[in-house]
């Protein structure tokens, strides 16, 4: 901790200078790229869905699972080939938010910790990044579920 007021002033002064000189993050441009790329991934997902429904025995209710599996497969493949992170630097949230981002988080960690072995390395670290998605996804679903039940009064009929 800084003791004298002089160094406190200096710290405040430096923080201001650093803040002023930091290049602004291109939020608008990056959001647009994320929107377009994210939308494009969803478009691919839609195409895959139509493909499965047309050529295989799937309907609207059952086609979700194979579609997601296909997207995950592609994302893991691209991660393994070392190109997914390059797309992501361009598109940010566009590749992070869809299920492909989740697959990338799992696969990249698995690759990274392969050198520590399958059990303590791959197994123990695979959920290092994706784990919080699962935890907070579940917690959020639980809370939203309760709110939904209260609002729609479904708890009465249950």
């Amino acid at each position, binding site marked *: 901790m800084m003791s004298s007021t002089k160094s406190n002033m200096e*710290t405040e002064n430096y923080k201001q200078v*650093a803040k002023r000189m930091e*290049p602004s993050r291109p939020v608008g441009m990056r959001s647009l790229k994320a929107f377009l790329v994210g939308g494009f991934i969803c478009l691919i997902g839609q195409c895959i869905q139509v493909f499965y429904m047309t050529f295989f025995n799937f309907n609207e209710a059952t086609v979700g699972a194979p579609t997601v599996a296909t997207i995950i497969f592609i994302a893991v493949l691209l991660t393994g080939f070392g190109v997914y*992170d390059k797309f*992501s630097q361009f598109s940010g949230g566009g590749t992070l938010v869809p299920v492909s981002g989740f697959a990338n988080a799992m696969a*990249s960690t698995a690759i990274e910790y392969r050198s520590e072995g399958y059990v303590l390395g791959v197994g123990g670290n695979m959920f290092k990044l994706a784990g919080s998605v699962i935890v907070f996804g579940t917690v959020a679903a639980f809370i939203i579920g309760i709110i939904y039940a209260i609002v729609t009064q479904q708890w009465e009929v249950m």
Partner: protein
Amino acid sequence: MFTGKQSWTFPSYPCILSSGVVAGPFEKQSPLKDTFDYIFDDRRMGENTFEKAQVVLMEEACQQALKKAGKTAADVAFIYGGDLINQDTGTTFASRSLNVPYYGLFGACSTSMEALSLAAQAVEMGAPLVLAGTASHYAAIEKQFRYPIEYGAQRPPTAQRTVTAGGAALIGPSGSDVVVTKSTIGKIVDHGLKDPYNMGAAMAPAAVDTILTHFSDFQMDENDYDLIITGDLGDLGRSLALEWFRQKEHPLPEAKFQDCGMLIYDNAPEAMSGASGTGCSAAVVFGKILDDIKNGRLQRVLAVATGALLSPTTYQQKESIPGIAHAVTLEAKGGGPL
């Protein structure tokens, strides 16, 4: 000899007998590639882990330096070094294979000049031959501090890229025209910055503090130097340091104040704000800068290696990033010590 507040003078002029710089395949695009002694084509350096690859970088940098001076590891009294992997294992394992008495240091990216200062002191005290060096490997250090390398996290423009390089210098009492004459050991300067993707800004005030203290300890100023080169402030860090010098009422001429992190990648888009890593200042200072002094293009240089002393735990616990900088004066000396 202790000088001023926090500096050393080396009146016996410890010499840099030779140096070795090695780099990874990404660094092939560097404008400084001709000053590297060896560039690996394989980013794993023939090993099965990136941690081992970094050990190879360190070993090879030391071996290149020894080879150029016609020495072997058995001639070396001590090795001073450190790196960014947990518990300094990268340097420890390299010292294990070199089989040289080992001082393990941790100064993050300031380690190169911390090691050089200590090596010069050891030679002053009578050590016949001392190695000082560091190495960093992009993939090993990203894993240590940030995300898996294939993880698609978008980096802000202030981020820096860890260099894959190792640099080592062989220091002895005589036998070369490049001498180490002074050093200033920096104190921790922490102005409360917390963004691990903006380490240049966290380190800049430390560099300024060390340089100004160096000037006052030796009653010198920038006119006594041909070049003042910082370790890895990057584009933003360097601009901030220049601004901070102005605020301290000691403005530096921009041309004289360069940064190793900006020289290595020369605006390559993947590098964002510039290079970083322990190997960054080692590769540039022990490569290009020593070459320039040898060839007479530079007379006297102040090399200021900058370090951000954070750990993944401290930044997750919302601690600020402590910065440090160590300065070493390198100069050309025609006549040897006497």
